[in-house]
Structures are given as structure tokens and as C-alpha cells.
């Protein structure tokens, strides 16, 4: 591991000022915020992350989970994944979020990992994690060996000819379906970024993954109040029953009225360069009877434009079946 200065930020402005000294908040950042460390320390050991300064943000009081005055769910940036998954408000009103978090990683990791850290976790593409390989995400312009290599786990949506890495988060998939908003604080003030706009598609610069600018600190995430009568579920398909990243996953939330679908929202994990949501696919469902034909239609629309690689073509049909199955489960 490359050596670094470890500092504990005394307050938020200090953390932001320290972060702003980096030329980028993306790959190659010289300053990194340390929360749970489950991604950052792992990648520092591999040499993929080489910050010169690490700023501990664990004692800034950013770990609250509560109902906000406007009815939103307020989730602090350093709230632990375990605490969020088991929180009574989350279990009651955002079931798919609780299920998504518990479907990811292990208890040990969830006890350390945080909300913001989960959103910012990096791809598990093995070429990204291996310094001996070229990787456009780690070293722009060096090439993408995954395209002609081992790509079974990787993305089929939102990819480019420079990068086919997938976003590994379960939590972010559920948050995306629930219309989460990311709240950040920077040197120039705060801003709110809908999670749907937070991740940037790889294009020719896969090293740029989010909207974050140097110094911008995620302070919390909000989820709008639950919709009356909405039922939700998270379904994750993977090679092992537990402690494994998704081949395909989906967070599905549906409201029925008079035997018809009044509203549906869903997002996909494991298949996209970012957590994947297609509004048009949700529109397809509105007003339909909750049956297999409608679900299949929505699934077809959602996977429209999917681009399989040499080893992961199966993900297209698997994703469609995952969507249909989750919708059946939640409407039965």
C-alpha cells in the first residue's frame, strides 16, 4: 500500500476543504474520504486507489436515520448498512431497500459499510482490480481486456467500447427504484442530485463514474415518503445463495387499484454500467392487469438496447425473467 496521511476531520467544512485539494473526486483522486473502508482499503491494498491523504469522516455526526419533517426518509452518509437494513422505518415502508442491503455482502461488511460508501463502491470487474491488466477505468486509454476476456459477470446495458464494467451495488438499485436523492455539500455550497442522475455512463471516460466534484461530501440521502398501498420486493439472482454479487437483480414496487396496476417502478442491478431504470418500461405497465404478459412487456422494454458480450448473453433473458418473477411475487 502506498503511504498516506491519515487525518480525522474535526467538522464538515474541514473535510470538504481537505477533499477539495484533490484535482478530481474520481479515479486517481489524491484525497479520499474514509467511512467504512470496505471498498477503499481493499482497493488501496491492491494499489488501485493511491490517495496521498485519507480523511476520516466517521465522527462527523453523519450517521442519522430518521423521518424528515416533510415525510422523507433521511439516511445519513455514514449510517451503517446493517443499521439501515434493520431500521423499523425501512423494514416497514421500504421493504425492497432492507432486502437489497441484506442480500449484499456479509454481516461483517454491512456492519462497517456506509450509505455513501455503498453508493460509491467500485466495480468488481477483475481487470479493474488487477494492476497487471490494462483498464480504461483505472488508467484511461490503456484498453479494455474484458471485452475480449472474462466478461460473464459484466454489464449489458450502458456500456461503451471503452468499458463494460457493471455497478455492483444492491442498495443503490432499491434506492433508485424509490426515487432517492443524494445530498452533497461542497466548497461552493450544497446541491441535491437525484440518484437517477448521480452516476455517469462510461462513454470514452470510464474513470469518471459520478457527478461528484473535488471536495463534495455526500451528507445524506433522502427517499420520498412511501406511496400508499405500494408493495415492494428485491429479487437477486446469483451463483451462490449468499455472499455473492448479482448476476441480475431487481427492485420492484407496485401499487394496484381496482385490479389494475396504478403505478409501478423498478430498477435493475448486476446488468448495467450504473443501476438501471427505464421509465418507459414502467409506463407500459400503468393501467394494465397485473399478469405475465404485461410484466414481460415491461421487461422487454427495460432490456431494449442490451448489448451482450461473449460470455454474458444469458443475462438478457435472465433479467427479463427476474423482472417478471419479482412482479408476480409482489402482486400475488
Amino acid at each position: 500500500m502506498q503511504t498516506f496521511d491519515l487525518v480525522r476531520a474535526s467538522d464538515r467544512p474541514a473535510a470538504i476543504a481537505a477533499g477539495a485539494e484533490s484535482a478530481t473526486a474520481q479515479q486517481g483522486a489524491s484525497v479520499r474520504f474514509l467511512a467504512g473502508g470496505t471498498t477503499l482499503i481493499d482497493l488501496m491494498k491492491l494499489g488501485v486507489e493511491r490517495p496521498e491523504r485519507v480523511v476520516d469522516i466517521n465522527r462527523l455526526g453523519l450517521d442519522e436515520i430518521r423521518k424528515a419533517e416533510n415525510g422523507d426518509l433521511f439516511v445519513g452518509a455514514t449510517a451503517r448498512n446493517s443499521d439501515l437494513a434493520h431500521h423499523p422505518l425501512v423494514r416497514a415502508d421500504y421493504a425492497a431497500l432492507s432486502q437489497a442491503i441484506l442480500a449484499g455482502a456479509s454481516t461483517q461488511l454491512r456492519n462497517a459499510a456506509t450509505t455513501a460508501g455503498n453508493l460509491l463502491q467500485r466495480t468488481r470487474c477483475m481487470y479493474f482490480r488487477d494492476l497487471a491488466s490494462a483498464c480504461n477505468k483505472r488508467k484511461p486509454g490503456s484498453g479494455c481486456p474484458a471485452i475480449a476476456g472474462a466478461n460473464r459477470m459484466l454489464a449489458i446495458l450502458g456500456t461503451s467500447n471503452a468499458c463494460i464494467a457493471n455497478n455492483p451495488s444492491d442498495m443503490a438499485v432499491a434506492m433508485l427504484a424509490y426515487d432517492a436523492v443524494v445530498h452533497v455539500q461542497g466548497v461552493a455550497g450544497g446541491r441535491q442530485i437525484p440518484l437517477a442522475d448521480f452516476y455517469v455512463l462510461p462513454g470514452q471516460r470510464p474513470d469518471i463514474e459520478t457527478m461528484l466534484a473535488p471536495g463534495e461530501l455526500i451528507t445524506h440521502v433522502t427517499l420520498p415518503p412511501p406511496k400508499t398501498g405500494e408493495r415492494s420486493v428485491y429479487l437477486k439472482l446469483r451463483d451462490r445463495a449468499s455472499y455473492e454479487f448479482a448476476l441480475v437483480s431487481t427492485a420492484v414496487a407496485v401499487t394496484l387499484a381496482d385490479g389494475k396496476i396504478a403505478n409501478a417502478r423498478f430498477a435493475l442491478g448486476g446488468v448495467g454500467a450504473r443501476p438501471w431504470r427505464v421509465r418507459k418500461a414502467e409506463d407500459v405497465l400503468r393501467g394494465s392487469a397485473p399478469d405475465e404478459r404485461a410484466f414481460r412487456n415491461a421487461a422487454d422494454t427495460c432490456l431494449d438496447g442490451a448489448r451482450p458480450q461473449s460470455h454474458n448473453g444469458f443475462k438478457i433473458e435472465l433479467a427479463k425473467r427476474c423482472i417478471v418473477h419479482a412482479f408476480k411475487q409482489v402482486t400475488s
Partner: protein
Amino acid sequence: MTSLFDAAVTASDAGEGRIAIKLRVNGQEREVSIDPRMTLLDYLRDVLHLTGTKKGCDHGQCGACTIHINGRRMNSCLALAAAHAGDEITTIEGLGTPGRLHPMQAAFLENDAYQCGYCTSGQIMSAVALLSEPCGASDDDVREFMSGNICRCGAYPNIIRAIQQVRRDQQKDAAPQPAGA
């Protein structure tokens, strides 16, 4: 720069690039000067010589390094020691002693819940933490909650048996005594 930060964890007089911190391990406070790169795992094993905590993958994938931080189980390989000043750290050595085993340690012995033993301290630290987590009653629930601890010998059936035995014993102890008993 120093004025922006808590002086306790900035490099001060601890030596070039080193950090002076206080760590509480198994109830004892230790003052140490360490390299910021040092993980809790390496600190426990190489500095304190508490070698019950094991290094398996060193990347948070195997669970052999599981310890308790403020009562919650975590992978010590993914924790920077210097970031845990003031936290209460418990290792397998703080759980029981050969003459006075923790009930979970005794149950692992009784149920032959290991073969080579390398993963065992991590398994036991996870199992003890599980007792106070919202884990369901079935074997499947326990398997799910223990999936962060890999055993390459495949002692899983007996590990589950040991954990379930301790949980049953705890429930018996917690159950109200019948009237007149």
C-alpha cells in the same frame, strides 16, 4: 493544515509518517505509535501478538479476521488501526480463556465444529455476535448470517449445530421458571 483536524490523529511527534493513538483492546488501553497503513488485523497480530485473530484473504472475503468493534463484528483486515482510536476492540483472546471458555467456544469443542481450525476464531467471533443480531431461528437463517465466514474444511454442519445449541441453551436460561419451581 493541522488546525483543521483533530490533533490526536495527525502525525505529530510519533515519528516520520507515524501516528500516536490510544487503542482499547480486550479492556486494556494501549498507547501506540503506528504507520497509518497498518490494519487492525496486523496491529493485533504483529504488535500485540494476539495471534488468535487470523489472516486469510486480507480483503474482507473470508471472515478469518473477524473481531468485535464496539460489540459489532467486522473484518479487521479492512479497518485501519489508527482510525479506531477510542473504540472498544474485542478479539478471541478477550472472549474466554482455556480454563474458562465462552459457551460458544465450549459448543464448538463439543460439536467438533472445525477441522484445521484456521477459520475457527473468526467463526466463533461471528457466532457470538450473531446471538445479539436479528437472526431467525432456522438453520437456514443461521447459514445466511454466517455466510461471511468461509471454512475450506467444510465444517459447516457442525458449526451450525454448535451455534444452534448455544441459542437453545440461552433461550432455556431466559425462559420463565414454571410456577412453584
